[in-house]
């Protein structure tokens, strides 16, 4: 025998299974060695004999597992107390037999599939494979002789001697060689991803850099590549500094950590969603601010009417003092701004201004800025939606939830003791539920039960949809009534004081917010009445009911603004500048929505908590309804997007609102609520929320804005597009003028005509998308099939393994009987 296979069980390191390079020789050799022994039918396996001798010289009869050391005995107990008085050598379908010989047990515990999780040598060889793969990616397929050790010995052909002589040091050398040949980025990434401890990684890195330095110093660098090398290093250094600076600007890190420590990932996802919306609005504010607000602020148009005085009501209604300011569409001028004619804008620019001054075409800028911000927001939303969807979508439809629940449901972020206890309770309940489901799946409910449940659900839905329809009708008629009142009052110029007229504008927003507050309570009550089988179904139903409510409310409001208000523009003084009026309406809606949320948080959560503490004397505090709060955020954001065209400074208002909302909700949650008592699948719900933000919310807003730009006549007396039929036509006209002035831009106009307005382009684009989607779905199908095949193969390999182990065991048993007489000999291994 070439090798001294060390099966010394009393060696402390081997028993404890520690990572040590010295062990690896024996470990990976074990299988091929023993196969070689048995197939060549040599004498009794010395190694097994040796270890048997050392075990217990007196007891030769039984391979009693009870004689194993206590640690191993504990390891191999399967949960029953029988420890080896069973029949020996009985082949069953699992590898959990108690009566394996200690040699077999040792082999089993040293199998590569079990050492890969804990031994350093196995990790190094696995990463050697990876680096080799990375290098060989562009080369042709290597033959099987070149493959280094893999975790499963059955893949290697018997007789391949390449790996068996590798010691750990040699493997490490080859790993370092491979690491050197990778690019620096790959090397850093691979070193980070290795699950070794830090001191070993440091030594690997040191060795790699040493050798790299050696190879580099041997070649003479020319001066330009030397310079390039240093420039790249400096750039990378500054990039790392920039990243860590950005990371240190982490907004709200401490409050978020406190929330997650107490409430877990579910409530945290609400605050993260709020942060995402804040960043969206900051981006919009920057874009619109720098392209629209700042130029207009520097060159203000002349004032036609006198500015009204500031009363406190403007903060709520947005009218009055704020009416003719940068906040609204009507303020922006409809001609090119020139830097020299600052004071006298309405007259045509003087000839000497043209050549030297900077000009800024405001209508064109307005048009393109709004278009650009919508486009970029769309791209970001679709990208984040697809990324989030890709994370939560799984290809293989295995039905097992139990293993996933047990392995993945502990939330390590939770710190507070009571929350940890709640989490444990949660998990226990879920496990029991899942066990019960699995157990009782065959029990069917009776027909009458099903019918009763169906009737209850039907009633519940009818009630909710009816309530929604009723409220929508109320909004419709009330808005009609308010509109007519305004028309009448502006025509009559009645003696009502200005303040009252302004305040009456608040009536519609208050009504809408009130409906948004009350109806979800009705929905909750209905859901409590109907009994749902699964909590996830209940969440979905309540989410869809709330969504239907908000979509219909927003729909009727858009109808009111775009049809009625815009339609009455020409015949009434009050609606002469209807875009500004719509902008004011949206401002009002945002502010009143915020106030109602504030009041609901105060009264809803604070009062309910004191009520529940003092009167009901219960220990449980109200839970934080994540879905409802996120829908409220989405509603607010939809209003902000709708208002982008009509009030360019609306993102600033939304930013302030979100900042205040964060702190209010944070303090309310910390003071009044407790951790959720039911399970909350964070990433699934986050995907749903991003999808809701993209589809009904953003899509609806962009459809409204597109409709406004395309079809609605812009007002005659205010705004950047005054005097034209529609905004699109104004834009086109301006572009034509621009092209006339600079003939170089002729190609733009041509491109516009041939690409944008040509229906053929649309057809071709749509066809390409459909083909790509079909192709990807076929790929997914193929992958599913491959997964099923691979699982079958792994099962077969498992069967092979069992077969081999039981054969080994039986051979050992056979050999042991004549070997009883050899115990006194020294096997000499």
């Amino acid at each position, binding site marked *: 025998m070439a090798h001294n296979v060390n099966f010394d069980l009393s060696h402390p390191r081997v028993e404890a299974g520690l990572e040590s390079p010295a062990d690896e020789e024996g470990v990976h050799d074990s299988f091929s060695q023993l196969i070689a022994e048995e197939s060549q039918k040599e004498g009794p396996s010395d190694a097994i004999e040796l270890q048997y001798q050392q075990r217990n010289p007196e007891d030769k009869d039984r391979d009693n597992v009870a004689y194993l050391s206590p640690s191993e005995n504990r390891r191999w107990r399967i949960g029953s107390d029988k420890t080896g008085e069973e029949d020996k050598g009985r082949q069953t379908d699992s590898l959990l037999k108690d009566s394996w010989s200690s040699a077999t047990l040792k082999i089993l515990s040293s199998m590569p599939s079990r050492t890969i999780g804990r031994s350093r040598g196995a990790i190094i060889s696995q990463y050697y494979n990876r680096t080799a793969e990375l290098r060989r990616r562009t080369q042709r397929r290597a033959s099987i002789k070149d493959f280094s050790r893999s975790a499963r010995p059955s893949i290697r052909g018997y007789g391949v001697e390449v790996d068996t002589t590798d010691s750990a040091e040699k493997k490490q050398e080859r790993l370092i060689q491979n690491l050197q040949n990778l690019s620096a980025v790959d090397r850093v990434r691979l070193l980070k991803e290795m699950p070794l401890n830090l001191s070993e990684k440091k030594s690997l890195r040191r060795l790699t850099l040493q050798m790299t330095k050696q190879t580099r110093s041997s070649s003479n660098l020319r001066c330009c590549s030397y310079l390039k090398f240093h420039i790249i290093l400096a750039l990378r250094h500054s990039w790392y500094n920039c990243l860590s600076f950005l*990371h240190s600007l982490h907004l709200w890190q401490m409050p978020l950590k406190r929330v997650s420590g107490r409430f877990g990932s579910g409530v945290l996802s609400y605050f993260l969603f709020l942060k995402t919306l804040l960043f969206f609005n900051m981006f919009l504010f920057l874009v619109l601010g720098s392209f629209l607000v700042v130029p207009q602020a520097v060159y203000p148009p002349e004032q036609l009417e006198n500015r009204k005085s500031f009363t406190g009501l403007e903060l709520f209604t947005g009218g009055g003092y704020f009416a003719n300011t940068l906040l609204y569409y009507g303020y922006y001028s409809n001609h090119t701004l020139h830097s020299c004619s600052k004071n006298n804008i309405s007259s045509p620019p003087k000839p000497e201004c043209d050549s030297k001054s900077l000009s800024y075409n405001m209508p064109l800028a307005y048009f393109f800025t709004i278009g650009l911000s919508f486009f970029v927001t769309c791209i970001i939303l679709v990208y984040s939606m697809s990324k989030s969807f890709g994370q939560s979508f799984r290809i293989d439809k295995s039905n097992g939830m139990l293993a996933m629940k047990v392995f993945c449901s502990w939330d390590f972020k939770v710190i507070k003791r009571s929350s940890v206890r709640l989490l444990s309770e949660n998990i226990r309940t879920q496990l029991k539920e899942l066990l019960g489901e699995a157990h009782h799946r065959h029990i069917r409910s009776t027909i009458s039960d099903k019918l009763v449940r169906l009737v209850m659900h039907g009633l519940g839905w009818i009630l909710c949809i009816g309530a929604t329809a009723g409220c929508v009708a109320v909004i419709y008629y009330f808005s009609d009534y308010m509109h007519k009142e305004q028309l009448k009052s502006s025509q009559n110029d009645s003696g009502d004081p200005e303040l009252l007229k302004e305040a009456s504008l608040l009536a519609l927003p208050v009504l809408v917010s009130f409906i948004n507050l009350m109806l979800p309570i009705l929905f909750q009550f209905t859901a409590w009445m109907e009994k749902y089988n699964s909590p996830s179904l209940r969440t979905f139903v309540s989410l869809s009911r709330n969504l239907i409510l908000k979509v219909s409310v927003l729909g009727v409001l858009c109808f009111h603004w775009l049809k009625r208000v815009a339609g009455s523009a020409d015949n009434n003084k009050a609606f002469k500048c209807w875009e500004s009026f719509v902008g004011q309406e949206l401002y009002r809606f945002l502010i009143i929505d915020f106030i109602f949320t504030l009041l609901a948080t105060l009264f809803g959560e604070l009062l309910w908590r004191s009520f529940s503490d003092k009167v009901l004397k219960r220990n449980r505090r109200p839970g934080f309804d994540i879905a409802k709060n996120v829908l409220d955020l989405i509603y607010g954001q939809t209003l902000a997007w709708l208002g982008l065209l009509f009030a360019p400074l609306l993102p600033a208002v939304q930013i302030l609102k979100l900042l205040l909302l964060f702190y209010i909700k944070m303090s309310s949650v910390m003071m009044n609520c407790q951790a959720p008592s039911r399970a909350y699948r964070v990433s699934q719900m986050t995907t749903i929320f991003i999808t809701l933000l993209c589809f009904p919310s953003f899509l609806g807003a962009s459809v409204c804005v597109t409709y406004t730009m395309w079809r609605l006549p812009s007002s005659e007396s205010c705004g950047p597009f005054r005097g034209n039929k529609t905004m699109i036509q104004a834009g086109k006209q301006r572009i034509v003028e621009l092209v006339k002035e600079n003939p170089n831009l002729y190609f733009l106009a041509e491109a516009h005509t041939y690409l944008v307005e040509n229906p053929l382009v649309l057809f071709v684009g749509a066809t390409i998308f459909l083909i790509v989607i079909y192709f990807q779905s076929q790929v997914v199908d193929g992958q599913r099939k491959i997964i099923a095949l691979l699982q079958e193969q792994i099962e077969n390999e498992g069967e092979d393994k069992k077969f081999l182990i039981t054969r080994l065991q039986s051979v050992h048993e056979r050999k042991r009987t004549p070997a009883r007489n050899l115990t006194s000999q020294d096997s000499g291994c």
Partner: protein
Amino acid sequence: MGTTASQLPKESLSEYQELTFLTKQEILLAHRRFTELLEGDERNHPNPRVPMDAILTLTELKSNPFKKRICQVFSTSENRDGSLTFEDFLDLLSAFSDSATLEIKSHYAFRIFDFDDDGTLDYGDLEKLVNCLTGETADTRLSSEEMRQLISNILDESDIDKDGTVNLSEFQHVISRSPDFVSSFKIVL
């Protein structure tokens, strides 16, 4: 933290940044918290080692049912007593950080759940795992019948090669199906 011996040298800092998933601020914060755990005279030691009891007083680990296993997995001491040096501590934070890959997290999660360190999750390991999850007191645990059913269901679902235990690859296969794992396997100082 005022003495120079307890401050990190600059090249170590950049080395740690390159080899772990932590940012510079996180490494400095970790250094600060680590030195707070040391006794006064140990701070001048070149490579101090904090005993397990001190590590377990950190608020982030105090109530975690897996705290002892976490210390044992990341410890590099010879007598396996769960004590950590500063580099072990950084390893711990790196594996539990925001930017660590799914593979690193699942690797260390496997080692944490492998209570007897034999490289696979067998019945005993799974039983201990479920007991840690459901709570420490006797009335919060599952009954033995439920436990047996639960573990046999888990093995049915996740043991692909049917050897009665869950090895690392099978564990990683189960983990890859759960999108929540990466966000819940996090500890932030």
